[in-house]
């Protein structure tokens, strides 16, 4: 892509409270440039809220830096223009626009009003490249609302690519996907992480084991454990959170293997 800078994400002591309930309670984590970091944790651990805080959707205290830019305190669209892109648990493509139109809009946040006033002629290069990467080149003119579930998720990732996001925050990208679609999505993540930093919220442990480069476990708004897949799997605190009681190493299969 046009911007070849590779930046890491640095989250320091981030707190988010809603009316006295603390959803994220002092989370600090470092995602090095080019990582594929998985965020896991039980429901209510604060994973999505943390991503909401990073992208400016909810107010937070602390510090979130991407590269040398502080993100907290900026409005959503400004954070997006710094190269931070995200997807949502429910896919939110523009259903009444075609695949190409979806991608073209995603590519255009820096366009001038004069460009916006004109019609699109053909397919811009970056959109064509993204169509190839996400495997939807054959469906360019199809309405996004008529795509299969998995294809919508890929379209969302494609929109992040043309948007020139250098940090991708994906909220459960493989939920509801078939095995083949999961494999394809994993391969896609590996491709895009060559020149981008990727953070994935995911419940699917098989997917995690295959594609995560590092894992952070959140629990009750705090970081419980962090490390490689093997390190996290071996952490007794993680096992306790998932099983409700600590286990003797080896006696019970790790929850992450279930």
């Amino acid at each position, binding site marked *: 892509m046009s911007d070849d800078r590779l930046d890491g994400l640095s989250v320091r002591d981030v707190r988010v409270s809603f009316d006295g309930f603390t959803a994220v309670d002092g989370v600090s984590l470092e995602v090095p440039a080019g990582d594929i970091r998985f965020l896991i944790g039980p429901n209510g651990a604060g994973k999505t809220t943390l991503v909401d805080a990073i*992208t400016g959707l909810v107010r937070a205290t602390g510090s979130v830096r991407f590269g040398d830019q502080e993100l907290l305190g900026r*409005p*959503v*669209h400004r954070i*997006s*223009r710094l190269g931070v*892109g*995200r997807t949502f648990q429910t896919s*939110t*493509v*523009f*259903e*009444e*626009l075609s695949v190409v*139109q*979806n991608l*073209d*809009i*995603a590519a*255009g*946040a820096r366009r001038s*009003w004069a460009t*916006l*006033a*004109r*019609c*699109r*002629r*053909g*397919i811009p290069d970056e959109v*064509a*490249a993204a*169509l*190839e*990467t*996400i*495997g*939807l*080149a*054959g*469906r*360019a*003119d199809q309405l996004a609302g008529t795509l*299969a579930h*998995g*294809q919508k998720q*890929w379209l969302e990732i494609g*929109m992040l690519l043309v*948007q020139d996001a250098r940090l991708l925050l994906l909220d459960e990208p493989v939920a509801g996907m*078939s*095995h*083949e*679609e999961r*494999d*394809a*999505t994993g*391969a*896609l993540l*590996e*491709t895009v992480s060559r020149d981008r930093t990727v953070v994935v919220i995911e419940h699917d442990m098989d997917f995690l084991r295959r594609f995560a480069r590092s894992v952070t476990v959140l629990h009750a708004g705090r970081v419980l454990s962090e490390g490689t897949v093997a390190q996290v799997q071996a952490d007794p605190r993680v096992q306790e959170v998932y099983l409700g009681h600590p286990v003797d190493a080896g006696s019970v299969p790790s929850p992450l293997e279930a």
Partner: protein
Amino acid sequence: MTAVTPAPPSTAGAPAPADVAPGSRPGGRSRLRPAAGFAFGAALLFAVAPLALSDFRLALLAKYLCVAMVAVGIGIAWGRGGMLTLGQGVFFGLGGYAMAMHLKLADAGPGGMPDFMQLYGQLDELPVWWRPFASPWFALPATVLLPMAVAFGLGSLVFRRRVRGAYFAILSQALAAAMVILLIGQQGTTGGTNGLTDIQGFFGYDLDDPVNQRMVYFIIAGVLLALLALARQIVHSRYGELLVAVRDSEERVRFLGYDPASVKLVAYVVAAGMAGLAGALFVPAVGIISPALIGIVPSIEFVIGVAVGGRATLLGPVLGAVAVAWARTALSERFPGTWTYLQGLLFVVVVAFLPGGLASLWALARRRAERAEVHQ
């Protein structure tokens, strides 16, 4: 197993298949069709209607076409942008009053005062805010720019605070009510409930002369076609696609790095400008502008026409507006008491059973026909 997947993302950069190569819309035919459509519309408005209709009916059509201009704007703001604006009467009124003020001053002659001011206002001289309207160079641009400026001010306040949906609709309607109250309260300088009436001339032409009435009709028809061309450009531009995206998922657009407030603001301001222009041309066509023509009821009537015709299409709002305005004249002549109920019923039926408006019937019929072909 992988063969089962419909289209797995390919990591290799294989060349794009030929059928999706750049230029998704083959040029020739698709550019000819709108041109043919405009030619047909122009022939209808400029040749058929003046020949087929009496002077009286043509003057009525001129009035309907003004309503249609408002409808074109609502089609953009509501149909494409999702902003249900129940207060377009405000902008229609601003344009109309700006034009009527100029024409009243022109009728009164240099240094003269409009008749009603001496009658109700007992004023000795023209109020300060009337004076610039004596100049056509101020008044004519003001008919469009004044509504646009008001829409800009209001829109900047409202859209940034993320007021939308029903809240926006109610707010815009309240604005229409407020404007009417203001106009009626300032009877001495605005003509109050009567409005500005008895307008005689239009830039030196006597409006009682049928020939000049015809000229006004042709101006209105020409402006409507121009607004349609503008609306078509807006809808087909990248901005038009972006506007639909904002309508369907404002939050998502924000995460792509746009400010949806400015996207909506542009559509709202454009719609206000169109309503202002419509109001300005309504005055020479009908000879009057009054609070009753711009308040809550007419504001809702504008929207009903758009809903009936099909808000998300280009021509739907125009045809719907003309049809509803015509039905109103035809039916209220015969059943003066029941028309309002009929109109309300029509709105409910369309919104409940045909949300795409009459324009969607055509698409529906085409889909049926295609399906029938497949089954054979």
